[in-house]
């Protein structure tokens, strides 16, 4: 690690004041940032520890939940209202990392974690436009089994690693931030970026902007939702593809549906095309597969990940079938 100064913030306004300078980074649970520091991928001059900021989960007047950014992943997954009203969120969190890491990781940190592309971490041996803009991308022609098939660019084919964020994308969460220029709220779909020609920027947050809370709006069909993750081993591995979905039926027809994919793009991928195709349609296996095919029609697979569109489609069909049948796992 390169040397840094460590400061602890006791509230958001102090964090924003301390975090304003160049070379400053916010520290949550450290499960990603400490690793990035050790690999010298991240070289901040100053760390502002925000892991001690408010960690409450409260009901909103609208009937949703307001989740403090310092809430630990385990605390969010075990919260009674999350388990019953937003099971896809509890299941997404429980599918991620290990129990030890979930005990440490914060909500705000989960949203701002970096990709797990191995070339991004290989400071000595690999070119990476996300780590060093303009240096090139060794993943595009390299071992790219875990990489993106949607929304990638010539500069970057990395995926977003979070499971929790896939559920938050499907749930239309709102991200409340505060910073040197004041407070604002960001629709979850606008928080993470596609790489374009600036893959070093993962999010639309300005420097010094701090995530304070994540708001879940109420969702009538939220209780009929789940998350399924496909990976190379049964536990403690990042997703090859994952699906967060909620479903409401009106007889045989789909009254409402929410779908987001993980492991396929630089950001959690809200499947708006598939959702539009399914709303009002009959809930059949063929309709599910057709909707997925539509979502992935512009997919651009790489050498090692051409299986992803078909795997994502079959996973979506299995999840929607399970939800339509009243199964939850």
């Amino acid at each position, binding site marked *: 690690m390169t040397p840094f100064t460590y400061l602890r913030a006791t509230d958001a306004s102090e964090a924003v004041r301390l975090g304003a300078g160049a070379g400053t980074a916010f520290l949550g649970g450290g499960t990603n940032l400490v690793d990035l520091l050790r690999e010298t991928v991240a070289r901040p001059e100053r760390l502002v520890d925000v892991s001690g900021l408010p960690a409450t989960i409260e009901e909103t007047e609208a009937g949703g939940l307001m989740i403090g950014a310092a809430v630990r992943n*385990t605390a969010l*997954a075990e919260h009674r209202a999350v388990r019953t009203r937003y099971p896809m969120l509890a299941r997404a969190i429980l599918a991620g990392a290990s129990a*030890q890491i979930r005990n440490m990781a914060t909500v705000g940190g989960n949203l701002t974690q970096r990709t797990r592309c191995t070339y991004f971490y290989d400071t000595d041996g690999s070119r990476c436009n996300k780590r060093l803009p303009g240096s090139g991308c060794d993943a595009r022609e390299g071992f790219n089994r875990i990489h993106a098939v949607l929304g990638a660019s010539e500069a970057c084919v990395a995926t977003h690693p979070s499971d929790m964020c896939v559920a938050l994308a499907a749930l239309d969460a709102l991200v409340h931030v505060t910073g040197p220029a004041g407070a604002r709220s960001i629709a979850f779909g606008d928080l993470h970026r596609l790489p374009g020609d600036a893959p070093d920027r993962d999010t639309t947050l300005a420097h010094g902007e701090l995530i304070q809370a994540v708001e879940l709006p109420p969702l009538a069909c939220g209780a009929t939702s789940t998350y399924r993750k496909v990976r190379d081993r049964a536990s403690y591995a990042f997703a090859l593809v994952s699906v967060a979905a909620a479903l409401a039926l009106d007889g045989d027809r789909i009254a409402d549906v929410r779908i987001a994919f993980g492991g396929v793009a630089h950001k959690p991928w809200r499947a708006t095309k598939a959702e539009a195709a399914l709303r009002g349609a009959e809930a059949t296996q063929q309709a599910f597969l057709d909707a997925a095919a539509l979502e992935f029609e512009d997919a651009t697979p790489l050498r090692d990940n051409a299986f992803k569109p078909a795997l994502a489609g079959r996973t979506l069909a299995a999840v929607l079938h399970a939800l339509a049948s009243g199964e939850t796992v």
Partner: protein
Amino acid sequence: MSLIVNGARVSAPSDPRTSLLDLLREELRLTGTKKGCNQGACGACTVLVDGERVLACLTLAVQVDGREVTTIEGLAGADALHPLQVAFIEHDGFQCGYCTPGQICSALGMAAEAARGVPSHVSADLAAEVTLSREEIQERMSGNLCRCGAHNGIIDAIRATLAAEVPA
């Protein structure tokens, strides 16, 4: 800045780059906690902070200011091993032993999580009470790797000690 390690108050390091793992091993000479991957992938450095299992390699020591850390050295009594340590011996829960301190600390944290109802990836009903079946223990302990392949003995030891009332 100070923290409590196995009941004794110790000073936090002056260099904020020091991980909790390096503080324990290099400065306090508590070498029971092991450094496996040093990047959060193996679980060998698992310790309890205020009773919660965490990875010491990904924890900056300055972040646990004022908190209580329990390592494998803090589990045994003056005259007797912790019952889970005894069970690891009885059930062949290790061969080389390198992952064992992390496995044992992790299992104790896991039992506390299960007791307060934290569900897991394999829990069919998210709202139900937790029964520590073999499958549940496998999933909940997946953050602790054993390169000797002693996992079956590890699960047997945990079941015998922390989930004794559960049928096989």
